[in-house]
């Protein structure tokens, strides 16, 4: 019973990322993004930014091509084989 009663206290200690352990990392981030390196904000954060940008652009270009392909296909008269 005693163990059960101490459960709320133990749970809040285990999951207290919000109250105690999290440090304010905003000043560090401000330093990174205020650096005078001429980089635009969408890739100024580092390697992850560049990778995510490249993935997004790849889908954009490939997707546009893909939609044009399907458009051409949709424009074709229906062949009897289908």
């Amino acid at each position, binding site marked *: 019973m005693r163990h059960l009663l101490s459960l709320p206290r133990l749970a809040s200690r285990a999951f207290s*990322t*919000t*109250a105690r352990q*999290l440090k*304010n*990392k*905003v000043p560090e*981030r*401000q330093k*990174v*993004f*205020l650096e005078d390196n001429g980089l*635009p*904000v*969408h890739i*100024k*954060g580092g390697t992850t930014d560049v990778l*995510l*940008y490249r*993935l*997004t*652009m790849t*889908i*954009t270009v*490939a*997707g*546009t091509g*893909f*939609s044009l392909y*399907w*458009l051409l*296909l*949709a424009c074709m008269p229906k062949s009897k084989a289908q």
Partner: protein
Amino acid sequence: MAHQAHAYHMVDPSPWPLTGAVGGLLMTSGLAIWFHFHSTTLMTLGLMLLLLTMYQWWRDIIREGTFQGHHTPPVQKGLRYGMILFITSEVFFFLGFFWAFYHSSLAPTPELGGCWPPTGIITLDPFEVPLLNTAVLLASGVTVTWAHHSLMEGERKQAIQSLALTILLGLYFTALQAMEYYEAPFTIADGVYGSTFFVATGFHGLHVIIGSSFLAVCFLRQVQYHFTSEHHFGFEAAAWYWHFVDVVWLFLYVSIYWWGS
């Protein structure tokens, strides 16, 4: 930045408007391709692109405001106008569906039995789960206001707790509504009653999910010390949106659930 002699924000060139537009193209053409050619690839690509665009675009706005200091008072004023205009456009969106509902329900046709609710429709009891849903959303309006005041007074822990409670209430509403949808004695295909009910409440439910997501992002930002007691417009925008969602529900409840039953 020491380079500008004005308080306005000249944004860096960004690829996200283009990727977002292409995402819209892929989703719409993808929908047509799904209907006619049974392939969901294009639509899925479009959805992925839209999600990637939203994530990166809003991430960049947070960087520009919180880390680069571009959101000066005049810039913030512009953002406020923008959010107000957006919510106004959403009000008109819902007005259309209310117009449809009142058009059909104020003068019910002979095909419906000349009455509202139409013959054969078993309506939901407005004093059961719908009333609970009303209480849940009203309570969430109180908790989001509590969160705002906590933010303004610099009460970090209270702001986190009340914001968390608001999000939980939003999720509770969604769960209850999902259950109602499953248990409802009528479907979207049940004439104009079904159409107006599920389209109006369905779009509202989608907005609850959007609002809850917006609040969840604010929660994460508050935990990471992004907001100050003077400057927290992202949260205010989320709170405005949440109140809008709440008000739409009140109109839905009174019109469709209560008067329409």
